[in-house]
């Protein structure tokens, strides 16, 4: 996992609620056995007419040149539904390092963090403010300070991040490294459990 400290970037707005992981990456693209290449199928059915990559749907944000950046901003309850981690892989593979929303589904939040994608939970009001920004506006996210700023206006909110997860993100550690360091404790626990 790559370390993540700060992001300053333009953003792609997706002001819809309850975006489920079946939309983020439809099941028919889950046949791969590696973690790479899912980005090209991110939001596949919203992106292309009849699944035809030669026919992008021009009204979808990922197909509009005015939007770009490393931050995806989406409506409430992002990532609900299936636990497929492929959703987080697709988002990362496409080039997003943070997703901003006013509410995240549990499993998605975990999956994102485990892959170095930062879920940033903001208030409803702040989310609406971001959506009102021009397509050229930028956002700054500071992982250590746990803040997100709309650069044009200086408006800022802080977001929650579990201190353990924060350390992992800032340093690019992952949970498996941690668990492996605990093997003795786990073995001792097993003996007592039985």
């Amino acid at each position, binding site marked *: 996992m790559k370390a993540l400290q700060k992001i300053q970037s333009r953003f792609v707005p997706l002001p*819809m*609620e*309850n975006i*489920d992981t*079946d*939309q983020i990456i*439809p*099941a*028919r693209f*889950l*046949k*791969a*056995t*590696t*973690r790479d290449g899912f980005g090209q199928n991110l939001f596949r*059915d919203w992106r292309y007419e*009849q*699944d035809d990559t030669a026919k992008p749907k021009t009204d979808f944000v990922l197909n509009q040149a005015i939007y770009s950046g490393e931050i995806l901003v989406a*409506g*409430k*309850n992002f990532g*609900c*539904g*299936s*636990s*497929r*981690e*492929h959703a*987080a892989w697709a988002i990362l593979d496409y080039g997003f390092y943070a997703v901003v929303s006013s*509410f995240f*589904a*549990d*499993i998605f939040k*975990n*999956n994102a963090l*485990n*892959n170095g994608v930062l879920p940033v939970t903001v208030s409803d009001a702040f989310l609406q403010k971001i959506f009102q920004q021009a397509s050229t506006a930028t956002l700054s996210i500071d992982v250590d300070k746990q803040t997100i700023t709309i650069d044009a206006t200086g408006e800022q909110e802080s977001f929650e991040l*579990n*201190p*353990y*997860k924060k350390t992992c993100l800032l340093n690019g550690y*992952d*949970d*498996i490294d*941690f*668990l*492996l360091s*605990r*093997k003795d*404790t*786990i073995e001792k*626990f*097993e003996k007592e*459990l039985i």
Partner: protein
Amino acid sequence: MGKTLFDKIWDQHVVEKIENGPSVLYIDKHFIHEVTSPQAFKGIEQRGLNLFRPKQTIATADHNVPTLNQHLPIKDELSKMQVDQLIDNCDKHGVELYGLGHPYQGIVHVIGPELGITQPGMTIVCGDSHTSTHGAFGAIAFGIGTSEVEMVFASQCVLQTKPKTMRINIEGELQPGVVSKDIILYIIAKISASGATGYFVEYAGSTIRSLSMEARMTICNMSIEMGARGGMIAPDEQTFAYMQGRAYAPKGTQWDNQLEVWKKLYSDNNAVFDKEINIDAWAIQPMITYGTNPGLGMAINANIPLSDTILDEGERKNLIKALQYMGLEEGKPLIGMPIQHVFIGSCTNSRIEDLRQVAALVKGKKKHDSVKVMIVPGSQQVAKQAHAEGLDHIFAEAGFQIRQAGCSACLGMNEDKIPAGTYCISTSNRNFEGRQGAGARTLLASPLTAAAAAITGVVTDIREMMNEKL
């Protein structure tokens, strides 16, 4: 203060609490399948590790398998590769696999309980959100992502933050024609698709106690559809009776000893939940969904809500967008609307009781000419039992297509897809855009409601059909 059922099991499985962080939670049983495991196997191999406790992992192939001609090689090359890789990985790492052709093969959440692998008091995980199903036995069971599958491979533990607890009490008798699928669709419609996010739910009350194990599984299965981490029900005599004699269930004195332990698994009288919801069972009607998340559901004889009665702007937009996708109009009823497909299957409703209910309703009848009906047993054992009871004959005579065990049209990963623009009444758990195939329009309902529509060709109130019978 007393302890909740959840707390009792959780506390027993915490290896270590990280300061200001999650807990290291020990996992008793780990189920894996072909779609969410290959990257995790690759991950531990890259780290030069073996599985830490291979005997506590059980594998099956279900999501991406064909449901016709399972004895032949898989035609789709990518699917074949994924299934072959599972066989290789299990072989290499010493994991028991109930793959294609094995008499125990089936949907992971159907086979776990049916084999007695799922037991009260356990912690159970699987790289699939409907792992919540196993909670019906009084276990802490939840879905995990592939990175977490890798964690369990490496250490038999996951890192988890303790969720809040919610109890949903359902009291009283159910109306005729109302089954457990209606109960859970009713609860989700009431509290919304995100209403239980951050919580682990315990279902309790006299209605729950009166339900069979299979009906309880249907309810726990869909906990995730309201955002919950998982759902659970305290074990009771019904649970123990279901389990006794199953392949993996303890035997002899071991059974007696376990029983003593399991009988202590309930929420204490004075246990406090972070949230409690009370539901009157008699108020529940047969349910159906009209939108593109499971929270957009209503009583089958109701009208689709008017968007201007919805105050929250986001929800209103959501409804409008959903109805557009579904090709439905606000304010209108669904009763009498023609449908083109019926899918009876999935880890929500593909067990033997579901099949029996459907068979009892369609016996001696024929499906409507304009409807295609697919019935997919949850496991080889369910299929075998259905055959033994002659249910397959009833289905064949009714013109239903009986397929072989797998997830099938629940997620449309194999060729079992619903064509774009057509309506499908489905006993599965998700009505998301494109879930059953690009452009497919899913109406979630109980097996009874699905069977009724198969016969009439239109959305039907099962109670009217039952009255006719009398």
